[in-house]
């Protein structure tokens, strides 16, 4: 880490090169981790394992999309996991009452509402996104607990279609790719090529400048957080198809890794830099790392410490890199 700050030109050039192409070190890191896994448990890396890894990385990558998009503007969405959990739980408990299509629609409503509340707080009241989304997450959890008591008798059903999408595979490839590939393409295209995507980068790198150039920032923030809530909801639907057991804390364990995935993937937590491609790699890296840690029988506490340390270390390195350029 210190080596990049030294004034030696070759190192600096390498640092700048890596700073401009953050995907290369990520791919190398992913391959190193897979190699390490194969070394520790020879034969573990096969088609089935690759399929499983991708299957578990996809919901994480979708949740990390919320973090990536909000981070581009210098924000964060700590309520994403709650929004996803609520959508999954409400959908599963509504299926016996109203049928699958309507249940999915009803399930997505609270996620959008959480997004609206976040957007309102961030855009109009100028509350820091971190505090705002933490608060709405708390309120959302409370609402879910109240809701649970009303539907305790109805039971819950995970629709076959979602289970097929979440866990099924066709020729060794997980079916969830059917949802994820178009989704990822849409996000990558959206952030690079659409006006909305560029506004996110503009607001993230210099909000004052963006405003002076005529960007109505509150509209962008409102739309962004609603979009983030909606994505979280869809991720929750996919995740419940994978886990098949809706609970009140279904997606919560994914919150931390989703932030870490975006940060590892090169999205700056201060806004203006990064993209979804890196986040997908980050999600894959974290899933492989998770397998590795499970193999090492590392306790939950040490995992959290590791995630925290990764976020801090990566952000520090990015700050050093951007300081030079």
């Amino acid at each position, binding site marked *: 880490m210190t080596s990049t700050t030294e004034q030696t030109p070759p190192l600096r050039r390498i640092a700048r090169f890596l700073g401009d192409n953050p995907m290369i070190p990520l791919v190398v890191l992913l391959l190193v981790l897979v190699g390490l896994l194969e070394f520790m448990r020879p034969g573990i890396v096969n088609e089935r394992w690759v399929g499983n890894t991708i299957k578990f990385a996809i919901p994480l990558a979708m949740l990390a999309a919320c973090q990536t998009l909000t981070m581009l503007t210098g924000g964060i969405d700590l309520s994403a996991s709650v929004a996803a959990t609520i959508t999954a739980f409400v959908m599963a408990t509504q299926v016996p009452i109203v049928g699958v299509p309507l249940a999915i629609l009803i399930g997505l409503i609270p996620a959008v509402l959480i997004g609206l*509340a976040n957007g309102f*707080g961030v855009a*109009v*009241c*100028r*509350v*820091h996104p*971190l*505090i*705002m989304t*933490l*608060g*709405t997450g*708390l*309120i959302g*959890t*409370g*609402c879910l*607990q*109240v809701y649970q*008591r009303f539907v305790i008798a109805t039971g819950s059903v995970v629709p076959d279609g979602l289970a097929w999408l979440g866990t099924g595979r066709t020729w060794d490839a997980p079916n969830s790719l059917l949802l994820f590939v178009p989704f990822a393409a849409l996000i990558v295209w959206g952030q690079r090529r659409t006006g909305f995507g560029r506004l996110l980068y503009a607001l993230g790198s210099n909000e004052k400048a963006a405003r002076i150039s005529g960007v109505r920032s509150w509209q962008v923030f409102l739309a962004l957080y609603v979009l983030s809530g909606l994505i979280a909801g869809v991720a929750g639907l996919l995740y419940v198809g994978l886990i098949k057991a809706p609970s009140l804390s279904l997606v919560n364990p994914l919150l*931390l890794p989703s*932030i870490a995935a975006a940060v590892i993937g090169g999205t700056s*937590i*201060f806004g203006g830099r990064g993209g979804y491609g890196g986040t997908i790699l980050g999600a894959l890296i974290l899933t492989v790392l998770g397998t590795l840690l499970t193999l090492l029988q590392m*306790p*939950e*506490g*040490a*995992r*959290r*410490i*590791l*995630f*925290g*340390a990764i*976020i*801090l270390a990566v*952000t*520090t390195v990015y*700050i050093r890199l951007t300081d030079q350029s």
Partner: protein
Amino acid sequence: MKRLIAKNGWTLGLVALLIALFIFTRLIQPGFGASGLESLSRATLPFAFATAAMAVVVIAGGIDLSVASMMAVAGVTAAVLMDGASDAMAVPLVLLVLGIGLAMGALNGALIVMTRVPDIVVTLAMLFVWEGVALLILKAPGGAAVPWVREMIVGTVLFPWLPKAFVVLVIALAVVWVPIRRSNLGLSIYAIGSDERAAYRSGIAIGRTRIAAYAICGLFAAMGGLSLTLSTGNGEPIPGPYLMASVAAVVLGGVVLGGGRGALLGPIIAVFILRLVRMDLTLLSVDPNVTTIVEGSIMVAVVMLGGILAVRAGRVKTA
């Protein structure tokens, strides 16, 4: 006199609100008296320390998202060490836990100063780290507290209406904060909060002051964790909702997010107000889950209001 009122208008308003709430509580629960005060103070104690911790760093122009996690670390450490400890051992153990809190806070501050990463990101990462440390120390709620130390915050002292928990809170805050507030360090903390560049130019060691502010924050957080362990009798590795509550109390208490203004008194009154609201809802036999929603909504509304006020203040400043 007029100037005094104008200067402390916000705090006086909070006091009035608190008194009004007490009267309201008395109306809905005529039996509310000494025992009610006692349980209110005991329930408020961890929240009050968390708020004090947050207030110090906010005054210094920062924020510490790891307050609740540090409380968890201090709480489980105390519970594990005190499990089976003799009465005499309790005093050094308490001091050790407070020392650990000071060290945790200082580490947060040092990381912020050394990495040059914004405080909000560093303390977010440290939130996860301290959470993990707490889980490593104690996987599930357990441990114990030495009985006579527990007695310190249970019951009343001197007068039947004066809860021990309240006295402990006042003494702890006074012993730590008043000397600091009067010293150079206190002045420096306010200075780096109100204008870092001006503080730097007047020769204040920014880095050292910031580390000191975070260390004090860690110390208060350790007190909060300790009081939590003492009031429940065991250690809880999963941090409670103290982060959001402390931010809300700080904002409601008149400390401006962004730093340089405010004091500890306002936030402490605010935290009592927030706890009393919760108690009233319980007395009105509102479902606890609904209470959580109402409480969360109040806190979010408070930070939103604080945000709007901050925007207004900023406009006035630039205009």
